[in-house]
Structure formats: structure tokens, C-alpha cells
């Protein structure tokens, strides 16, 4: 059985901004797993323009809402509670067909509970570029690991 779920790179820091560079095009999909204490933003291939959009379904602990951003500046969660001490938030981005020639789509999972505050969010995010993804920059991470997933 071939290995189909492989770590590409990992990074850690305190509210660090990190970049995964030279991402190989040999996988089918990417999975980014982030542990953070602040609000992270994801930038692709050094694109700091407005080619991003997000559609969120979010629970705040009292209400459920859906919202959308268009021509956004990054992939990101909708709301966020800054956590202190030893509390952490978990995020994942599943990025499909990242090396293909169509616009890039990701499904985002965001889980944040701070014992009295927090948000649960699921989102779909789009980067309007046909370029293969070869670099991901992530802000405010505690740990971040990029995995590659092969379909064979």
C-alpha cells in the first residue's frame, strides 16, 4: 500500500507568520492543520490582492449565521476569540486539486472554545487563480503542518 497522506513541512512559533514554499505538485490535494491563539490569515503564492472569497457557516454559542466575503484579502475565519494562556484553536484547510489549472477551492474547519466564548465555523473558500499553488503563507500560528494527499 503506498503512502497517501504525507507531511510536507511543519512549523511552530508564538503568533508566528510562516511560509510553506516550494510545495511540490506531486500530490492530489493539500491539507493544512493549524493550531493558533489569534486570528490566522492564509495567503497563496504571495498574492496579497483581492482574489479571495469566503462563505461561512458559523455558530457563536448563541446564534447560527451564514456570511460571505467577496474580493477578500485572504482565506480566513469569520470571527475569532483571541485566546490566552494555554488555550488553543484548531483550524484545517482541505485544498483540492491545488496543482490544477482551475480556480482553487478549500473547505475550512474552525473550532474555537474558550470556556464561555468561542466560535465553530465551517467555510468554503476560493482563490481566483489558475496557477498551481506552490506557496502558502499563514499568520499567527502556534503550530502548522502541511500534508500532501495522493489519490494513488
Amino acid at each position, binding site marked *: 500500500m503506498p*503512502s497517501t497522506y504525507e*507531511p510536507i513541512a511543519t512549523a511552530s512559533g508564538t503568533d508566528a507568520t510562516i511560509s510553506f514554499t516550494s510545495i511540490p505538485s506531486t500530490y492530489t490535494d493539500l491539507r493544512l492543520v493549524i493550531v493558533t491563539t489569534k486570528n490566522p490569515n492564509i495567503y497563496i503564492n504571495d498574492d496579497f490582492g483581492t482574489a479571495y472569497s469566503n462563505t461561512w457557516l458559523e455558530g457563536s*454559542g448563541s446564534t447560527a449565521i451564514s456570511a460571505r466575503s467577496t474580493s477578500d484579502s485572504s482565506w480566513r475565519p469569520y470571527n475569532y476569540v483571541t485566546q490566552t494562556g494555554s488555550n*488553543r484553536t484548531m483550524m484545517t484547510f482541505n485544498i483540492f486539486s491545488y496543482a490544477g489549472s482551475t480556480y482553487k477551492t478549500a473547505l475550512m*474547519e474552525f473550532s474555537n*472554545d*474558550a*470556556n464561555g466564548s468561542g466560535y*465553530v465555523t465551517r467555510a468554503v473558500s476560493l482563490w481566483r487563480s489558475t496557477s498551481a499553488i506552490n506557496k502558502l503563507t499563514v499568520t499567527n500560528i502556534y503550530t502548522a503542518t502541511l500534508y500532501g494527499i495522493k489519490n494513488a
Partner: protein
Amino acid sequence: MPSTYTLISSNVLASSAASVTFSAIPSTYTDLVLRMSLRNDASFYVSSAVIKVNAITGTYSFTTLLGDGSSAASSRDSGSYQGFYLSGVNGNTATSNSFSSHEVYLPNYAGSANKVASLDNANETNATAAYRTINAGLLGNTAAVTSLTITSSSANFLTGSSFYLYGIKNS
């Protein structure tokens, strides 16, 4: 390249059981993933379970997002449950042979921070009661996770319920 998504242990029930425990979980992985297919003997369409970490019974809190097929809602709980709350477990009056699906992701489980979890629960039975529930969970305890006990809110999980614990390495 090392294998990074590894089955640590599994348990597929050949007879009913009140709980399932994964113990002596090694600290050599980065994250844990618990995948379950569940049905219990509660006299309801939908029931629940809890996951105790290291047999700890307090200091769990949750933020929840729930959809029931007609509306969405969100809620929060601090301290009511003695474990990470697992909602949307199929009860014994749910459609025959249907089991609910659950995935629990525990990042940095061996680290020294409080333990967080992302819990995804899906319950669909081609009937009136069905739920998709997502929880963010927090355990106010910094000890490394060495055991997980999944306990049914009713007497027993039923035969055929399955529990798979995976470890994920980042290198």
C-alpha cells in the same frame, strides 16, 4: 517516507458495551483522530455519548453549531458534561441498521497546553429526526492524553458500533 496516518487501535463491537477505552496511547504522534460509527440502546431516535480524556470528569466546555434539516442553531455549555460531548448518536428507535458517524480531532494531544478538540457528528436516517452537529471542545487540563474512554449516555453501544483511533505524525 514514513507512514504518517497510522491506526493505533480499533474496536468493532461483537456484543453490546457500555463504554470503550483506548489506553496507553503513545505520545509519539502529533495529533489523534478518533472515527466512530455508533448506535446505542436508548429509546430515542437520537442519543449521545461522552469522551473522557485520562478519566477526567470535569472542566470540559463546548461551542456547538447544529443543523436539523430545517434550521440552524448554536449553543454553548460549560461544565455540564463529564467529557467531550458527542451528540447525534443514533438511538435504538432510529431507522434499522443505521449508525451515526463521528470524527474527533485532537491536535497536539501530547503537549502541555489545554486540550482542544474538533468534533463532527452526522446523523441521517431517512426519517424525521436527523442532525449535523459540530462542536469545538476545550478541556482545561494540560496533561498529555494517554487514554480516551467513550461512554454511551444510555446503557450500551449496540453490536456493530465501531471505534478507530489513528495517530498522525507531522514528520
